[in-house]
């Protein structure tokens, strides 16, 4: 039995990827395996933990709950696309570093994309609102408080 594949065109972090995937292939697997962008992590594959969060046309989505074909033509931003260059970190990355907002780092890409996506659209967000947004994702190492602190610091930095 041969499985049919379909061509999909993805724009990830500004680069174009022309890939051939089975229609059932998740966006997360396509990013990780077909685009070799392994920064997007899979922690539950049922949409709860948020480790696979990416920005699809600027909106945070669970890459494990989407098929790659659904992202046809869309602009995808992953953790690899947050920093402007090899030397500089995105303000959210920098804040997570400075405020010890990560330990094992596995959930981190999901939190970074979630926070970056949210703050870029809601730069005036306050702590309660951000804590609520952060409750979208799971972290098992930090107890969240440094993630909250880092998020607040990033918000301030991004407001300039």
């Amino acid at each position, binding site marked *: *039995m*041969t499985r049919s594949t379909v061509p999909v065109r993805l724009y990830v972090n500004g680069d174009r990827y022309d890939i051939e995937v*089975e229609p*059932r*292939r998740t966006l997360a*697997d396509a990013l*990780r*395996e077909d685009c070799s*962008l*392994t*920064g*997007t*992590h*899979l*922690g*539950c*594959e*049922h949409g*709860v*933990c948020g*480790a696979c969060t990416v920005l699809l046309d600027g909106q945070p989505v669970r890459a494990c709950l989407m098929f790659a074909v659904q992202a046809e033509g869309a602009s995808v931003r*992953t*953790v*690899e696309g*947050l*920093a402007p260059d090899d030397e500089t*970190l995105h303000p959210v*990355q920098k804040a*997570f*570093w*400075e405020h*010890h907002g*990560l*330990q*094992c*780092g*596995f*959930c*981190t*890409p999901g939190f*970074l994309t979630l926070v970056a996506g949210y703050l870029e659209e809601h730069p005036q967000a306050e702590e309660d609102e951000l*804590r*609520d947004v*952060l*409750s*979208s*994702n*799971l*972290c*098992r*190492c*930090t*107890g*969240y*408080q*440094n*993630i*909250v602190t880092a998020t607040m610091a990033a918000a301030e930095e991004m407001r300039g």
Partner: protein
Amino acid sequence: MIGARALRIEDRVLLRGAGRFAADTQRAGELHMRVVRSPIAHGRIVSIDGTEALRLDGVTAVWTYADIADLPAIGFRLTPREELLPYRQPVLARSIVRYVGEPVAVVFAESSYLAEDAAELVDLEIEPLPAHLDPDAEPVDWVDAEQASWAAGHGENLPAQDSEASVFTIGYGDVDAAFSSGEGRVFTMDARIGRHTGVPMECRGLVAVYDEAEGQLIVDGAAKVPFWNREAIAAMNGLTPSRVVVRETHVGGGFGPRGELYPEDVLVTVAAMRLRAPIKWIEDRQEHLMATNHSRGQHHRLRALVDDDGYIRALDASFTLDQGAYVRTHGATVASLTASMLPGPYVIDNFRVTAHVRLTHKTPAGTYRSPGRYEGTFARERLIDTIAHGLGLSREEVRRRNFIGREQMPYERPIEAMGTHMVHDSGDYALLFDKAAERFGFSTIREIVSRRRAAGERVGFGFGYFVEKSGIGPSEGARVVIDDAGGVTVICGASSVGQGVDTVLAQVVAEVLDVPHDTIRVVRGRTDQFQYGRGAFATRLAVMAGSAALNAATALRDKAFRVAAAELAVSVEQLRIRGGVVEVEGSEQGLSLGQIAGLLDPLRANDLKEEPGLSADGWFHTDHMTYPYGLHAALVRIDEATGRLEVERFMVAYDVGRALNPTLVEGQIAGGVAQGLGGALYEEFLYAPDGTPLCTTFMDYLIPTSAEVPDVETLVTEDAPSPLNPLGVKGAGEGGTTAVAAAIASAVDDALQQPGAIDAVPITPGTLHRLLHQTTTQHLTTKE
């Protein structure tokens, strides 16, 4: 540098998504392994048919027990009590399945999607047998003589075994004589701790390939104990250990379960050898929640003999531990630690505890952050609160009257913990209580609670005190190497599960060599880079690897001084090191560490009568553990209508002897508290009466989010440095978790104004609603 809030050297890579976790290793031509698991908790395998699966294009092999019948059961890494041997787990089920999730077959295919398709086509016929789920029930027949003898694996014929795998008693003094003296009052406590576990965000995974060119089996994605796993994998595959390379990549959290040698790990390596292809296995979350070690699951029954002033003269305890279906690599570790750490910070003249390790048809259990202490601390601290209430004393007063005094340190309790004599190495338990009360404002909290309670709110304050243990030996080593350009590398046998060990080791070496810590590269968890390593468990690495790194860096500095002294024609006493440069005091002369490394090329080193290269090894050995200690306190509010509990404040005071990096210590505590809250309020593996697990997704196994976990207030003190290591450090990894359930329960009792109401965790809204409603119902009944 030691003691500084240095930024982590691990983070830049992780923040950019450039880490390499288990699933991130891809090899050309790899086959994906998918495990076929038992859907039945207890049953007899009638048949397993992989024919349909093999018909799929791209499916290479389907294995059942018959295909790997030459493999022995998986061995014990820790606490290997002889009587547990018959309960060891086979790599694939032999003829009986004993829990839902037990591997019964395994499929290899060209893609992970295809492997899942194929696994679903494997036809299982399993005849169900009654499931035994209650460890408190009378033991039942467990394994027949054939299985027992096979699993024990020592060539002797054993009889059939029942579900009580082990019963052992430890203690000191004369408990029976104390209780029969007729003096004092007797208090009892019956306490239950639910079954939950670590659940790291990264599921397990392993990638193995036999490299024919090198003649080595390469295993990537290991964690926690790569050196022990190398020995086991080598033995299972009939290879010498030097032909097996086990490499830890990035590890997405450990907490106890992750990194132990599981059946799947053995299958990956055996398949790499036999199928001569790279084999990749990545666990999914549903598998994780029913296949990776569970933990906790204990039922304690305590009885204390207490003087009128609250002094505990004797403690008589027994507990059952729900071991699940097999005894895995941890052997009797959890039961043993529960028993020996039960007395905690208190003197207790006479002590006896009996552990019952009992099998049930559930996922096998092992260690989870603060194993045995989370459970024992809950039971013991509940008992202390009961004593306080019974004698009309304050909860604080009873604890103070029983503390081991500062003047009694080091305090030897005549029992063993993890095979070492138990000696509380240092501590001032009362002082930490004083400091916590002042820092967090306990008296103000009490006033506020009274005021709010008078206004009708259900608020409560409570606490728990505990002693932790850390720094288990026996040995750890490190090598510091400096290249000709002055680059510093630390190579060691330590492992990282994400706790920041690289940063801490770099800080220790940076302190000695006076170089920036973030220029140092740390290599660990790789069996081809260092010869020995015990692993990342039991909060041992700051003590063990930290001390080894200190010794290695000091030896390297000494060597650099000898070489510099010879080169500059001065004495070693005239030298000092600053900014990575060995300088002659009071002169402009100096040599950088890179220049000194250059002087140590093999030929010149020979002239200098030194070993070539600027490198040095350091070792640290110990036969005792260190004992950090702490206090957890909680302020909670219960919603009268719904039973919802809100943790308004959570406070931790913890003495770690010396904090190598306070930010990381606080981070460990905050993360530990979050996990402790999970076990106290949300997380529990529940089973249907037939043994079907009911919590196999994150929709029904509830991990706390940022909406549930409050900011943890921490007070890290350094009043009792350990006399047992050159850094004075005690480990910080587990003390955030230990007394969470105890403190929350104490606060909830206080909020309910029902002393002793909480005798089990997790405390659900349903429980609280019932406890709140019960009072009302009784009230109504009386009126009628």
